[in-house]
């Protein structure tokens, strides 16, 4: 990648340096840390019972995490009788059926909401990353215009966040009510993420950037050709933060979106899963009330809402472990 930076004037000087830096930096943390990791816990020294015990503890820990997931998936596949006999959750469906999924997806409401959520997440994450990177880069360059006051302003948003109603009024005055943009624009730049990205940028070797400049690259070219390729870990992490945020947001949608056809998946999910909790006692009248959705239905929609965002994790996993650390600790 770094070879692509080639300006036209001084090919011979720049390439070895940038290449070297380009190779090393994406490899991530300095070699010292890696060495420590491999020399890590219990390399061959422990006796058999200790190892067995460790295995058992790890197994237990895994079970604690996995069993609820299995229960959710199994319940979504179980039939009604089994669920009511088991009193809510089953661990293994005896007569697996996709009836719950069919019921959830057939109305069109959930499918539509799923696409709304996907759209908001994709567009939102892209815009949020773009804006965050630009801001963070500007703030990371010493001497850029008003960087100090701007940085303080970003920090300020970390300490003080506006209440629900001021937010609502801003969205309303911007004319964004009942628009998908109301879910994206107000949360497009997150102060914390800006700080993380900025400190990552500041950590990049200054020499590389300088050499690019000597080669005649402008700020924008430096950003897109040098800085961004070197910052993949932090971009992956921050991108994931944003994506999960957009994917999970229901509260803003509840406030700003009046048209139920524009509701994102999480809000629809809420009407299925959480909402019948307050539906107790005084609220219900018997005639013409739809019964609370069956457990399997609830779990099916839970699975539907989990899977897309879950699919992203494995691809970002390797960046995830180092990205936050690299950016944040050296701030």
């Amino acid at each position, binding site marked *: 990648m770094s070879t692509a930076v080639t300006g036209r004037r001084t090919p011979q000087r720049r390439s070895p340096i940038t290449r070297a830096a380009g190779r090393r930096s994406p490899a991530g943390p300095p070699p010292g840390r890696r060495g420590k990791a491999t020399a890590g816990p219990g390399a061959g020294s422990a006796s058999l019972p200790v190892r067995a015990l460790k295995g058992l503890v790890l197994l237990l820990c895994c079970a604690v995490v996995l069993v609820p997931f299995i229960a959710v998936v199994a319940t979504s596949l179980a039939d009604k009788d089994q669920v*009511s*006999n*088991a*009193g*809510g959750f089953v661990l293994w469906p005896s007569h697996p059926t996709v009836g719950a999924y069919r*019921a959830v997806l*057939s*109305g*069109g*409401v959930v499918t539509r909401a799923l696409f709304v959520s996907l759209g908001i997440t994709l567009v939102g994450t892209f815009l949020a990353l773009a804006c965050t990177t630009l801001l963070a880069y500007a703030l990371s360059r010493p001497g850029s215009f008003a960087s100090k006051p701007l940085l303080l302003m970003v920090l300020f948003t970390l300490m003080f966040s506006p*209440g*629900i*109603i001021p937010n*609502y*009024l801003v969205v*309303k005055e911007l004319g964004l*009510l009942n628009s998908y943009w109301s879910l994206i624009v107000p949360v497009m730049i997150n102060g914390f993420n800006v700080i993380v990205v900025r400190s990552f940028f500041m950590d990049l070797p200054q020499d590389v950037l300088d050499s690019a400049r000597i080669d005649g690259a402008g700020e924008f070219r430096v950003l897109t050709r040098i800085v961004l390729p070197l910052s993949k870990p932090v971009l992956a992490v921050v991108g994931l933060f944003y994506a999960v945020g957009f994917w999970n947001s229901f*509260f803003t949608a*509840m*406030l700003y979106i*009046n*048209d*139920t*056809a524009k*509701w994102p998946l999480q*809000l*629809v999910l*809420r*009407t*299925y899963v*959480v*909402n*019948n*909790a*307050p*539906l*107790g*006692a*005084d*609220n*219900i*009248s*018997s*005639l*013409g*009330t*739809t*019964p*609370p*959705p069956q457990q399997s239905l609830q779990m099916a929609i839970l699975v539907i809402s989990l899977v897309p965002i879950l699919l992203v994790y494995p691809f970002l996993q390797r960046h995830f472990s180092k990205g936050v650390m690299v950016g944040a600790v050296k701030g």
Partner: protein
Amino acid sequence: MASQTGPSRRTFLAAGSAVAAGAAVPLLSSCSTSSATKDTSASDAKAELPTYAPVTAVRPDLPASPQGSMPGYFSYPRNPKPAFPTPPLEGLDEVSIIYPTYSAVPPKPGNNAFWQRLNKGAGADLKITLATGGDYPTKFQTLIAGGDLPDIAGFPVPTPDQPQVMSRLFADLGPYLSGDAAKEFPYLANIPTASWKTAVANGTIYAVPQPRALPSNPLFARVDLIQQLGANPEPKSYQEFLQLMKDVTDPKKSRWAFADVWGMVTHLQMMLGAPNVWDNSTGTFTSTWADERTKQALGMVRDMVKQGLFHPDAASATAQFTPLREYFTSGRTVMTSDGYAAWDIFGQQIGYDKVTAMVEPKHDGGGDARHFGGTGSQGLTVIRKGLGEKKTRALVNLLNWLCAPIGTQEHLYRKFGVEGTDFTWKDGMPTLTAKGSRELVDVQYITDAPTILGPGQKATVTTQHAWHTRVTAGLLPNPAVGRYSDTNSRKGSQLKKITDDAQLDIAFGRQPLSHWDDVVKQWRSTGGDKMAAEYSRSTA
């Protein structure tokens, strides 16, 4: 309102009112002078409620009792007649409505036959904005602050500064509904007087209630298990009740008597004859928490827990409906406390023959205890101010239309939608199809006809009717229903948390019983005494 009995406490917890109120209260209160209007409740007692004029579109199979229990129906009338010659909103293009929903969201009107039918019946486009029930107070207060009020809105209770908010933003419905004026809206006049009490503010009517039955939560029992174990399904005193609990409990078979601490305290309060939330027999309001019998009930629950009669997860289950219902339907608890409509939820799930509601006996025997009354309504619906006489009248008529009772075509369409698409006739009953239950727009949370028993199986409805008639005969009302306390609207949930937490602490032995005295003291100084004073003043 202060009229909450056992169940609705949880509703408030679930409403997460902390976030909602926290953000919205300062704004709301800043635009009103709360001190000047503290005594509005005094005039509320003088408000003239709609003259009650019962409407019977079809004769019930079991009559309503004079004390106000619900009529029962064994079947749904097959060919109901239309009750409205012209649609209530004729001449209007659209009406915007917002209300809390408790069901899954329906598809938009474009591909929703049910909704289209509603629009057609109403005579205008119903622009409905839904908000999930738990989030509704937040949504509502945000709308108020933003000034984006729809024509018709559900009014969350409690809302701080309720009288001021109502008088500033919402239409005074007194001219349309007070006294005999209500005759013009026969189905609103069909709502019993007791259910109108909460709709009053500033000495006039500001809202239309959603009527509900009068009794608070029944004590449900798994009669099949009780009989199978040879226990006594109809205890005549506290001793017999305790014996029943012991007889059905068998931890080895994962079966316990009860799981809901707050519910049990309430039912024991009934047995002991404690006041229903408040007592004003002396002319001043005193709280049931300060009553000696409440402490006694707490001690009894504490003993029950000690004897292992409560489900081991009772401490966490007490705050929620779902686990309590699951325990009960799966037979892990033999009794539970829930809203009266849960009878049908249980019945449909496990069979009506397995569920019954008990009548609490007096503690020392000698007849039925007085069951506590609830609010008689749930939720209020208000109309925006300044829409002009003509539109306001049309909107009141829309609410009237939404209250058309069983036996009218409006009722059938409103509850079941389009025949063939949304419902089919099964055993003489309109039954929602899968499409129907997806498309259903639960406008019953705007307002509804007074609730009825059934229509359903003769045996079932007869049993339910018998329980309701027997309990309603000796119902102990909560004197605070229909009175406004400013402190309650602001600190209600905070105060409730004090007593709620303490009940659990004491029941599970984390605190001694004597701790209750301190709790009551704390409750009174935090706002309980002020609430009592405000209610007392409003009786004047």
